[in-house]
């Protein structure tokens, strides 16, 4: 037995080492319900310990290297590259003067924009607390687009915090160590960020491809998606606040696995390959100043008063519509109105007048003619052949005088009123029984 191990010790050692690693791999991968295998997003204790050791070993030299690089750049920038500074300073002073004027105008626009934004509950777009960090290292392989920053749990960093630059989003914090943190870039194949195209409002999930380019996957083929369109964060992933720039559409390629879908290759706004300083969003809770809070309260109260005013205005317009029937369309279908009570339809007619028919529909009211002639409604001097006596009613005559506008109305029995009966001033219509 001893000779076997001595003879094949190379192979035995190889098999033992391989077996141990494969068992370790099997413990890190789990099978999901969807049939896919995934590496646990949160490392186990043992795995985290290994990563911590590796980080502990690699980070200090990397910090030294990074510091040396910054020192060299500082030397260059502050001593060697300071030529023609005086001229540049004068030019910059002029630029500052101009920018101050522009800033004053933009500040007012920004304040107004913030108030409007708050009113429509877009508060999550605002970032209120960030932490600057330096990128000090990477994973060292193209298959893993992660990098390390020089801030960790000592600065209260947590998992899934968004990492951005002034240009756009960069990634999210994947692992936090005592003095460093591992950031998963948006161009990694295992990353995922909810994004939206600015113009077409098409949503999708952003992740990296094998070439390290971020792409929006699983998008239905759409001709409207054109290169150059801006891509923003959608805000639905609970990591990136909405509205942050992601990049622009570079090109659209067909999904190799699904015919009806396309992949939108995105040119990232942030320089993912050349990151130095990044910002970690540590809080997205709204934190308005006293002025802003006062403005918001004022806006809210104004919004309520405005709604009440609109309601009152609408009510008044309805009342006006009822009182001005001439403004209604006479050809419009009549609503199925309930019969009006007698008191409202002429039961209280003036003395000397017969009470009007109780079911008379509201007739359109014509405007009086300034100079009535033969053709003016109600001003005809010669009666029609089949008409009896017609009394010109003048400007106040109702359009019921015209046969087309007056529906046939049966003679109503005389109401039990003591008012004297007089002739109906309304001219008889052709279908009316005299």
């Amino acid at each position, binding site marked *: 037995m001893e000779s076997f191990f001595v003879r094949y010790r190379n192979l035995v050692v190889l098999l033992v*080492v391989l077996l141990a690693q494969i068992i370790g791999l099997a413990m*890190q991968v789990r099978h999901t319900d969807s049939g896919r295998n995934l590496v646990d997003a949160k490392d186990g204790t043992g795995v985290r310990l290994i990563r911590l050791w590796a980080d502990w070993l690699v980070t200090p030299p*990397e910090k030294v290297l990074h510091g040396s690089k910054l020192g060299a750049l500082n030397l260059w920038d502050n001593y060697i590259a300071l030529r023609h500074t005086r001229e540049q300073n004068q030019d910059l002073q002029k630029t500052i003067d101009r920018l101050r004027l522009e800033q004053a105008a933009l500040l007012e626009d920004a304040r107004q924009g913030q108030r409007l934004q708050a009113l429509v509950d877009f508060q999550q777009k605002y970032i209120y607390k960030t932490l600057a960090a330096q990128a000090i290292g990477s994973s*060292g392989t193209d298959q893993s687009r992660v990098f390390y920053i020089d801030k960790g749990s000592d600065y209260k960093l947590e998992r899934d915090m968004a990492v951005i630059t002034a240009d756009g989003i960069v990634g999210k914090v994947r692992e936090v160590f005592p003095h460093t943190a591992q950031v998963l870039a948006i161009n990694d194949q295992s990353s995922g960020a909810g994004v939206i195209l600015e113009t077409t409002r098409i949503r999708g999930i952003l992740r990296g491809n094998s070439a390290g380019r971020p792409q929006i996957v699983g998008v239905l083929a759409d001709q409207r998606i054109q290169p150059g369109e801006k891509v923003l964060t959608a805000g639905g992933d609970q990591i990136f606040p909405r509205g942050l720039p992601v990049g622009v559409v570079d090109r659209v390629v067909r999904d190799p696995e699904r015919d009806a879908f396309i992949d939108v290759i995105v040119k990232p706004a942030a320089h993912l390959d050349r990151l130095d300083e990044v910002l970690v969003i540590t809080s997205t809770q709204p934190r308005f100043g006293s002025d802003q809070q006062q403005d918001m309260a004022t806006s809210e109260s104004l919004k309520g008063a405005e709604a009440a005013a609109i309601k009152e205005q609408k009510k008044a317009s309805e009342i006006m519509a009822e009182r001005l029937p001439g403004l209604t369309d006479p050809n419009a279908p009549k609503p199925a109105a309930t019969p009006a009570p007698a008191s409202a339809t002429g039961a209280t007619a003036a003395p000397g007048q017969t009470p009007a028919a109780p079911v008379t529909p509201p007739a359109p009211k014509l405007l009086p003619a300034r100079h009535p002639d033969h053709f003016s409604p109600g001003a005809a001097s010669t009666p029609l052949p089949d008409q009896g006596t017609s009394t010109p009613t003048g400007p106040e005559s109702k359009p019921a005088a015209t046969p087309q506008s007056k529906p046939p109305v049966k003679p109503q029995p005389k109401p039990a009123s003591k008012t004297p009966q007089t002739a109906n001033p309304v001219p008889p219509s052709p279908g009316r029984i005299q």
Partner: protein
Amino acid sequence: MAILGADYRRDLGIRSYPMLVYILTPLVAVMLQAWLPRLLAGYAWFDLPLVVTVYFALVRRDPIQGTLMGAGLGLFEDALTNHAIGINGVAKTVVGFLAGSVGVRIDVENRTIRLLLTFVLSLLASAIYLFIHHFLLGLDLEWSWLAELMKAVGNTVIALVLFHLLDRLQIRD
């Protein structure tokens, strides 16, 4: 190997290095592998830990040493990624073992053979990585063989320089 005498090592052609070289070279390789890609942006077509593994496994002519060094450096690399720990470890373990086994049978002083071996073993490491990641573990992975080919070429170019530098650090009996 420490018990072998100088005459025996000379007979076998086994090289020996100061202990500091054994410790610092892999450490620097891993550290540079983590740091240089930031400077070179998307052109980091190399795998320094793999080159170091191949070198020491070849010149030491010891499969066990190659196996252990490959496993250690591979696990170290894995620990710096967001992937499962062990994928690179297995790949470099096999590479170290093969390099150590081949080193017994070939002339490790021949530069062409060493460079050719580095190129082939780089591609083999990529293939093992793909096999473990995609087929053994069933994880999604987009793959570009062109990138792996470029990496193999990069490793060969680096080996051309690095092997020469490390050769000068060996202990002469």
